[in-house]
């Protein structure tokens, strides 16, 4: 059995009904995507860690009504990328994954400086790519020139 399916089973068990949505055709580049409550992201991510997935990418999204972080994982097997999505209010602090995946240290530093989403108990909260004294968050839709600032349901129906 592929690691991907093991993880899918596990997530189905851990998360409430309807939180996991599968993408059979791999159309959006992930096999399945799971909506995780902020408080449980550490628990879910460490389940993925135990199953042998690696944290491939992590990025923020900024909507008018909510903030979101998307974690992409992969298990080195064909077509086995999956994503975890966390929705939270802009000001809320998010638990850090740096205790589970070493790569999260830098990825979270990047998300923090570009979006201003603060990670609680992050071991190294300095800026990574921006100047060390930069107090702005360039990828927020409130910064600089933007095409549109939308609510989440306008994109994800």
């Amino acid at each position, binding site marked *: 059995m592929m690691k991907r399916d093991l993880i899918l089973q596990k997530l189905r068990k851990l998360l409430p009904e309807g939180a996991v949505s599968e993408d059979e055709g791999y159309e959006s580049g992930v096999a399945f995507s799971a909506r995780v409550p902020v408080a449980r992201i550490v628990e879910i991510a460490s389940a993925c860690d135990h199953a042998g997935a690696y944290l491939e*990418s992590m990025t923020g999204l900024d909507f008018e009504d909510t903030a979101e972080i998307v974690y992409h994982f992969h298990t080195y097997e064909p077509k086995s990328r999956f994503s975890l999505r966390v929705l939270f209010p802009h000001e809320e602090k998010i638990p850090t994954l740096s205790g589970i995946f070493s790569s999260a240290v830098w990825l979270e530093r990047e998300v923090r400086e570009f979006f201003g989403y603060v990670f609680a108990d992050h071991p190294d909260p300095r800026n990574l*790519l921006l100047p060390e004294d930069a107090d702005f968050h*360039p990828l927020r839709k409130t910064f600089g020139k933007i095409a549109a600032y939308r609510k989440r349901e306008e994109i994800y129906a």
Partner: protein
Amino acid sequence: MPKPITPPAVDRVYTLNLGPQHPSTHGVLRVLLDLDGEFIVKADPVLGYGHRGHEKMGENRTYKQFMPNTSRMDYLSGLLYNHGFALAVEKFAGIEVPLRAKYIRTICAELNRISSHLLWFGTYVMDLGGFTPFLYAFDDRENILDILDRVSGSRLTYSYCRFGGVCRDVDDTFLEMTRAFIGRLRSRFPDYHNLVTKNIIFIHRTRNVGVIHPEQARQFGVTGPNLRACGIPFDMRKVEPYEIYDQFDFEIPVGTNGDALDRYNVRLEEMEQSCRIIEQALDRMPKGGPYLNKSVSFRLAPPKGELYFAFESARGLTAYYLVSDGSPYPYRCHIRVPSFSNLHVLTDVFCGTMVADAISILGSIDVVIPEIDR
């Protein structure tokens, strides 16, 4: 491998500022090294000297306008980035690509991969103090640049791919030049092996140096040749075949120890495998037909939703994460770059090595800093 015998007293540690202007940092990397004598206690890379805000730019440009940006992230494999972006948007917006264009793009992308590996080969041996292979490699690379220059009009930042094909058709001279180059490169490999691979000093400088364990690679998200050197055959061209890679017969070279020598061998073997792909593509390429789907609108707007598209650049798994709100401008345009993770693992690998080894390891990892800075 030498390791410090006892943990050093704090007052013995001093900081060496390696970079941002240093001969071996390949771009503008600055590493703050805490040293005990010549042994590294702690390494702290300082990034961002080449930050241009490509992701923000992506949100303010139409998809087509963003194409030139893509080749400016990893400038050594710009065409691969173009290719990946074209594939991502084509998949997102459902654009048909003519078969001839697919072959042209594959050939050019693999040529670009070889050119990137050749440059790495040269600079890596130069980091180890061998100057001559550098110029040999550049001599070969020059041929690739000439070939790509003929078709794309550019030698470094190509922007050759378009959504639905390529911007210019190739002619018979291109095919001849490519064939001649493959023959030439094959005849040069024995020289490279005699000069570098079999060199006793080179082997001593690379074997068991900078070992990345598979578990460490997973923790840090290392991909590309660096991961394959640990023995994990993870290559997007095989694992999630895109374009027409599933039609070619090629292998994924892997190493065993994950040391610098394995990374070197994997990259050299990858050049050979790229040659095989190019040869097969040249043989099977349709003789005529369209090279570009001209029905693509300038202000194309993919449907609402998101797409994560991963492909294999010369340095590892690269991905575009696009979120569309149905307008011609992407709502979010994130780029997952391989060097980001590949450099991050060094903070772990550097500890306990000597300064000279650190240079060897940094070179063997093959990072392009502007790609990380974006």
